[in-house]
């Protein structure tokens, strides 16, 4: 992280000068303020800023490397010696403080020699913070950073600013290796002077883009480089040589226009992180450890902190004081996905039983036994890590302590050694002190005219036959069926019956369940009757002309059914239209495009109060989760209809203008995925924190009855809750900060369990540490959710302004407090946040945030609600879609082609690209695409022969076709939702749909391009700074 990319505000023009600037910059000691301790070096660095700009990539790149190297060495040494010593800043970030966990080791490595080892750790360890954040950005930044940070006191040489990555607008872009190389070159020069001796002094420390550059010097660096991806590699080797060249090149290239390649690239960041940390094992024994990106493949070994699959944070280093937090305006939040699925090679959670008395908990704060409890007094008592209360150890739990003061059975007890585990809950944790019944699944099918006509009902009935087989075994024991239009039809499918029996309930005002025995049945026992029913349903309603539907009573019926059966469960509702029949929850069309872009636009997002509000409460109280599959042909007031699902941990699926031929498979994939998700029911989650801060706000598909208990009728493996924290008091650097998330729930087979996730964070009074430990993906998840909530109450315009302001503020604060002084025209971004603006810009261009009358109100509401329950992976992908070039990939390789940036510039006329964001998937075909490509994929001679609405590729027996299809199916498997494959031809009308996902470009309906946004933000920052 120390990297700073310098981006000249007026970038374009200045670029060249920048170059020069760098050098200068290096000279100056920007970091000084912060790193004062470090001494001289910093100063040197500082200077650079000013001019740099110029052609981004090159210049930037160039500069950093050198410094890095220099820094490294210093660091290294330091590390070796006393990590802490280090520049205070670095220390803060990472390792220093962590003392306990961090284990010297981690740090150790970073130090000079073991660069290699550190690879992964490096980041953490050394610059700790720096690395994590991905130095990538502007190489140039790297250079700068070093300057700024220069800290390496020991060295005396310039250190990089750890946290920050600054970009030259252009510089960084790692995209093209060569350029970078050159960049790096340049940088070296700059640093050169100072660091020279070290070689990579600067680069090293600040992960800065330098990563690449640095590598050469410090072993650790290479990894960083990894983040940058190819670049790194390239540069490194070249480094030395490059440097020299670089400058030149920089100078040369200086162009008038900012090169898009020079601004921070998400694909690059992802690639780099994957290269650096991909395939590695992440051992969670370090406090405040910043995990790899969500896009990176890695394996987690739980050693005392919850896996990042369960919890991710916006920053892994909390500011010690509320003031500090306010100053930087970086939100403190965790994104908790308590049921996240784990890859096969990671150990599933252990289940712990503490016997009849239930899990051992702190007497005062009720935190559950966990690795943060400190055993004292010979093991007879323990001190709670959260509230410091000293508790007696129950007799049965007593264990002696070893010479380290650790319990002898530490490694035999998951609750003492792991970050995540489960407790068996006793009756005290059950409703009415009775063990729960296994959850039930009820399928509720709208059989009104629309659904019959579209063939949906038939499709569902057919599918259910096989779907039921796939249900988790326990839920097969309680399945029920309801159909409805403006009345409800319950079915008695008791195994003893020859024929199912239908019971019609038309009293929609006061819903009730007309039967008990025979409604919820064991699928295996009643299979014959159920098949009979599923065969008959489509015929029974074949002649229906009932087009009115009800909705709230349908959910109510489900709740009543669960009530009667005394169980929790899930409703699968397949619904077509706005419920206009006379019944509770009747809705009217309130879609009013005139409200768009007015103060009242928020009304469109607000659910109708009353019936649905109460219904949500009822559902949650009963543990009734509602999954809504909508098949609308027009406005249905989704904001209201989805209110219950979005408060009960349910999912909302929407298939507009559903047609069996084109959307059937898509829908069925969703349905199959949905029923097979691992899930817990009737859940209550509580997030406890150590003293000094606490959870204050919660976002997700949840219901809050009070300010602390997060209630969820159900929570599945894709549902995440974002929790915001606020300071209560001052945090202590030495003690760090702890979170414990406890989820009480009922398993699919009816056991009551407590799932515990623990996480330890660092604290620092240095902002730099904070910035180094930030995670952009988590930040954006938080911002997306809070913005999406804010639009319920404020005009979009305000929300957008707030977002931009906060973005600017966060960055300005960094610039002001952490970055080395530089010309105001330079844009300096913290390394860990260097792609933050891309995401932020993308977020502001999402449908809910755009006041455009072209967008369907329902779609906007849908996206708004979907995002509220998303985890970090999902928001990341949603806000920055994958764009894969398929025309030139290596068909023999198993690896996915490297994604390219989401910009039209990256498309080529003769290319074929696959774009997906977790919700939509497009196959884009260039105009000039070679016919043989078309032939092998579609089996038609040319583009012109292609049929309009194809939703799946033909199965052809050639390598390309197979490869493409396997890529697609691989992606479909991976995402929580299925996606409908849409094939668009360049310049065809549907291409518009596709274009809106090219998030770096100017928005289709409005919204700035990435470049413009960056400039805008920069302008804001400058204003803030002055």
């Amino acid at each position, binding site marked *: 992280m120390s990297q700073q990319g310098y981006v000249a505000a007026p970038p374009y023009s200045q670029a060249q000068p920048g170059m020069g600037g760098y050098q200068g910059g290096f000279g100056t000691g920007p970091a000084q303020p912060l790193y004062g301790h470090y001494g001289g070096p910093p100063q040197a660095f500082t200077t650079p800023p000013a001019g740099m700009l110029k052609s981004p990539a090159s210049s930037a790149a160039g500069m950093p490397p050198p410094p890095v190297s220099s820094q490294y060495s210093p660091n290294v040494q330091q590390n070796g010696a006393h990590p802490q010593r280090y520049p205070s800043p670095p220390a803060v970030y990472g390792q220093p403080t962590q003392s306990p966990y961090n284990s010297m080791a981690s740090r150790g490595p970073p130090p000079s020699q073991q660069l290699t080892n550190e690879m992964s750790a490096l980041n953490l360890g050394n610059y700790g913070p720096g690395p994590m954040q991905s130095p990538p950005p502007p190489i140039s930044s790297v250079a700068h950073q070093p300057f700024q940070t220069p800290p390496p006191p020991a060295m005396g040489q310039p250190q990089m600013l750890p946290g920050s990555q600054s970009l030259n607008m252009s510089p960084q872009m790692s995209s093209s290796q060569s350029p970078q190389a050159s960049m790096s070159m340049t940088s070296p020069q700059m640093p050169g002077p100072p660091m020279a001796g070290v070689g990579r002094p600067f680069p090293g420390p600040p992960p800065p883009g330098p990563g690449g550059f640095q590598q050469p010097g410090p072993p650790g660096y290479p990894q960083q480089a990894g983040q940058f991806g190819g670049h790194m590699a390239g540069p490194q080797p070249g480094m030395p040589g490059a440097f020299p060249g670089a400058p030149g090149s920089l100078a040369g290239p200086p162009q008038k226009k900012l090169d898009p390649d020079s601004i921070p690239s998400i694909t690059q960041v992802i690639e780099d992180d994957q290269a650096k940390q991909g395939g590695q094992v992440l051992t969670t024994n370090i406090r405040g450890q910043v995990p790899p990106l969500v896009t990176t493949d890695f394996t987690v070994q739980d050693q005392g902190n919850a896996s990042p699959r369960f919890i991710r944070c916006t920053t892994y280093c909390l500011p010690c004081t509320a003031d500090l937090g306010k100053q930087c305006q970086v939100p403190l939040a965790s994104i908790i996905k308590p049921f996240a699925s784990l890859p096969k090679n990671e150990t599933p959670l252990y289940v712990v039983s503490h016997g009849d008395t239930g899990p051992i908990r702190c007497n005062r704060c009720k935190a559950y036994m966990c690795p943060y409890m400190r055993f004292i007094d010979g093991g007879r008592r323990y001190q709670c890590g959260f509230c410091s209360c000293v508790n007696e150890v129950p007799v049965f739990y007593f264990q002696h302590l070893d010479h380290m003061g650790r319990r002898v059975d530490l490694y035999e007890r998951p609750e003492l050694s792991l970050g995540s585990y489960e407790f068996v809950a006793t009756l005290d944790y059950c409703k009415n002190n009775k063990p729960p019944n296994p959850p039930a699944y009820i399928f509720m099918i709208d059989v009104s005219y629309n659904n019959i006509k579209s063939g949906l009902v038939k499709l569902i009935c057919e599918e259910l036959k096989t779907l039921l087989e796939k249900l988790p075994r326990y839920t097969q024991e309680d399945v029920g069926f309801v159909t409805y239009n403006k009345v409800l039809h319950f079915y008695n499918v008791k195994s003893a019956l020859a024929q199912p*029996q*239908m019971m019609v309930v038309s009293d929609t005002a006061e819903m009730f369940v007309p039967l008990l025995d025979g409604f919820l049945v064991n699928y295996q026992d009643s299979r014959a009757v159920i098949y009979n029913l599923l065969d008959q349903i489509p015929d029974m309603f074949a002649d229906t002309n009932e087009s009115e539907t009800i909705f709230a009573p349908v959910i109510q019926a489900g709740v009543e059914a669960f009530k009667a059966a005394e169980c929790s469960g899930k409703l699968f509702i397949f619904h077509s239209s706005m419920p206009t029949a006379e019944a509770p929850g009747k809705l009217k069309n309130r879609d009013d495009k005139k409200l768009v872009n007015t103060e009242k636009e928020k009304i469109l997002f607000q659910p109708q109060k009353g019936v649905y509000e109460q219904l949500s409460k009822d559902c949650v109280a009963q543990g009734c989760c509602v999954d809504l599959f909508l098949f609308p042909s027009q406005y249905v007031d989704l904001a209201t209809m989805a209110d219950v699902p979005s408060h009960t941990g349910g999912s909302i699926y929407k298939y507009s203008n559903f047609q069996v031929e084109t959307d059937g498979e898509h829908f069925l994939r969703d349905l199959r995925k949905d029923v097979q998700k691992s899930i817990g029911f009737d859940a209550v989650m509580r997030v406890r924190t150590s003293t000094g801060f606490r959870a204050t706000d919660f976002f997700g598909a949840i219901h809050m009855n009070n300010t602390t208990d997060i209630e969820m009728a159900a929570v599945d493996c894709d549902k995440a809750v974002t929790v915001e924290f606020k300071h209560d008091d001052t945090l202590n650097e030495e003690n760090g900060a702890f979170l414990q998330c406890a989820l009480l729930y009922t398993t699919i087979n009816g056991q009551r369990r407590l799932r515990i996730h623990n996480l330890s964070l660092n604290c620092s009074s240095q902002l730099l540490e904070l910035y180094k430990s930030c995670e952009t993906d988590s930040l954006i998840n938080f911002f997306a959710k809070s913005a999406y909530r804010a639009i319920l109450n404020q005009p979009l315009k305000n929300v957008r302004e707030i977002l931009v302001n906060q973005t600017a503020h966060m960055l300005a604060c960094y610039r002001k407090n952490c970055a080395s002084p530089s010309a105001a025209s330079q844009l300096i971004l913290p390394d860990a946040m260097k792609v933050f603006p891309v995401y932020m810009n993308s977020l502001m261009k999402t449908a809910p945030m755009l006041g455009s009358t072209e967008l369907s109100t329902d779609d906007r509401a849908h996206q708004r609600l979907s995002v509220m329950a998303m985890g970090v992976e999902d928001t990341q992908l949603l806000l920055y879609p994958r764009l894969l070039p398929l025309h030139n990939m290596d068909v023999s390789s198993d690896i996915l082609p490297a994604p390219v940036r989401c910009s039209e510039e990256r498309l080529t006329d003769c290319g074929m690209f696959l774009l997906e964001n977790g919700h939509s998937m497009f196959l884009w075909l260039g105009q000039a695409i070679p016919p043989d490509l078309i032939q092998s994929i579609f089996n038609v001679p040319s583009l012109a022969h292609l049929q309009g609405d194809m939703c799946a590729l033909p199965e052809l027996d050639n390598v390309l076709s197979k490869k493409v299809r396997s890529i697609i199916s691989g992606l479909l498997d991976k995402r929580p939702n299925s996606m409908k494959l849409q094939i668009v031809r360049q310049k065809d009308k549907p291409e518009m749909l596709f274009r809106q996902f090219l998030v770096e470009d100017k928005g289709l309906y409005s919204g700035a391009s990435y470049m413009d946004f960056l400039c805008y933000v920069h302008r804001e920052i400058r204003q803030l700074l002055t």
Partner: protein
Amino acid sequence: MATYQEFIQQNEDRDGVRFSWNFWPSSRLEATRLVVPVSCLFTPLKERPDLPPVQYEPVLCSRANCKAVLNPLCQVDFRAKIWACNFCFQRNPFPPSYAGISEVNQPAELMPQFSTIEYIVQHGPPTPLIFLYVVDTCLEEEDLQALKESLQMSLSLLPPNALVGLITFGRMVQVHELSCEGIAKSYVFRGTKDLSSKQIQEMLGLTNSAPLGQQGRPLVPQDAAAFCRFLQPVHRVDMNLTDLLGELQRDPWPVPQGKRPLRSTGVALSVAVGLLEGSFPNTGARVMLFIGGPPTQGPGMVVGDELKTPIRSWHDIQKDNARHLKKATKYYEALANRSAVNGHSIDIYACALDQSGLLEMKCLSTLTGGHIVMGDSFNTSLFKQTFQRVFSKDYNGDFRMAFGGVLEVKEMGVGGTNQWKVCSLTPSTTLGIYFEVVNQHNAPIPQGGRGAVQFVTQYQHSNTQRRIRVTTIARNWADAQTQIQHIESSFDQEAAAVLMARLGVFRAESEEGPDVLRWLDRQLIRLCQKFGQFNKDDPASFRLSESLSLYPQFMFHLRRSPFLQVFNNSPDESSYYRHHFVRQDLTQSLIMIQPILYSYSFHGPPEPVLLDSSSILPDRILLMDTFFQLVIYHGETISQWRKAGYQKMAEYENFKQLLQAPLDDAQELLHARFPMPRYIDTEHGGSQARFLLSKVNPSQTHNSLYTWGQETGSPILTDDVSLQVFMDHLKKLAVSSST
């Protein structure tokens, strides 16, 4: 000249009418002085095998507020083809179709023997009969099975074109759709929610396609069938329904310990009424309710589901402790009224050991002409045979039931028209009609004039024809001052007893028991004072004429009857008895007031004996018929013989025959009776002997020492007064000058 006895009998046979007085007092004042009001028992649909209906419409008086039907009492001017209405004296021309009439060519309605005549009218298409079964499923398995069988059996008794429907209920109410193939469908209603008729029809989906109902025009049956999925012709859904009934399960909702099953009778009825109201207004329909216990939830709840709270008793009611009584009664009355308006009748078949809420629900039947049958279990021959008898057929093979009856009474000199709706009629349905003489005392009707009454009964015959039966009666007016003896001798004491009893029962419904008895006593005393011959203050001198001689005895037994006495009867039982009492014909009513006792012995053929404890002798077999019960009582000796098994010995064949005789007679009674009486075979000292002992006149009791030890009967252990004591008091009071 025939005796009054013969005259009365003949009138009853021909017109089904019995008047309390066959001479009518000529003024209001006189009428009130007669104590027993001028009134009659009228059996509108008395079976008249000898009366062929005529196939044309009746001719009506043209005066708007008269509309009396042409009858034998009208004066006819054959030449002018004009007839004079004998009620309003309007002169009416005959309609064109009567052009051919003359003295020798008279239409039937002018012939004296057709004082009762029946017209078949063609008003639109015939409407099918409708039977809607409303079945409680909170029954014991055995009971439910028996009931299902009875219901299945009943399907074969219905005419093929009759519409049937099925509603079952327990905690929920289910209306079964009968038209469907494949999946059995039913509409379910919450048992606790009172719904309006409109809501019910909406919920059943009947509103969209319901163009009927206006002007009460009945539907064409084909349309109707297509239109209402819940009521289908028997021939079409026979199999379906049989299967459906076969699969009927007990209410599946668990009944916790210490609770009654939740039974939503109120809502079930409301749905039934709403369904018929919406689909077949003004069409003959029967709702047949089968219940195995009291309504325990929702509107119409009679008792809560807590077993520890017993159902209301008379004691509770008198103490005003019956929480649900008023509300429930009101609820069922409202339903009954709605049902009556639409011409639908409601039967209640209640089979349970405990009470099932008949007290609250009886209005459903009484106001709509429905049956009430009460038994211990559906698995008894009492229920099974009674139910079967509902569908009994007459000599023409038609059901003995009629629907949608409207009775109109037109009375000479009154000019007013009174109408009553009697939704369902059977040939034995007998109404008590009380008249008021409106003439003022100072403007008496001319001597020798005749008063006339015309009963016009419109109804839907069970063969779906619309019919009108017209009975026109005339009686002489008499001046009560001068012709009191005529009036006295025209007294029909049997009819009078029944009519007075009905008044008494009517009062008993709303008044305290003792008040009713006092009123009845006062009426009796006044009657005796009016018509008895005596010397003041000399009880011994008291005499009553033959035409009144039995009347006091009827009153004595009436006082002891379950119609007025609630002791030892539950409110349900009282309701049940009273319900039947007010609708049976005179003969049956009299049996109810004063049961008949036959004695069988070796001394001679069976003979009726006094309903008196003195008739209970050791060597007799007694057969008592109280209408509701048939008791065969074996005297002490007979009983011992029977136990000894003499009847099985060839040499005692005669004893065997003696034992058999009352059984045969009882069988005969059983066959004719509706509802089936409870059949009791008991003996001296048997516990069931109480049925007999409670009825007989306690002429010998443990108190009457003078007969103690005599072999002339059995003393009854009671504090009730005997007939003798009663008569003594009556005489004393009648002759007393102080009253």
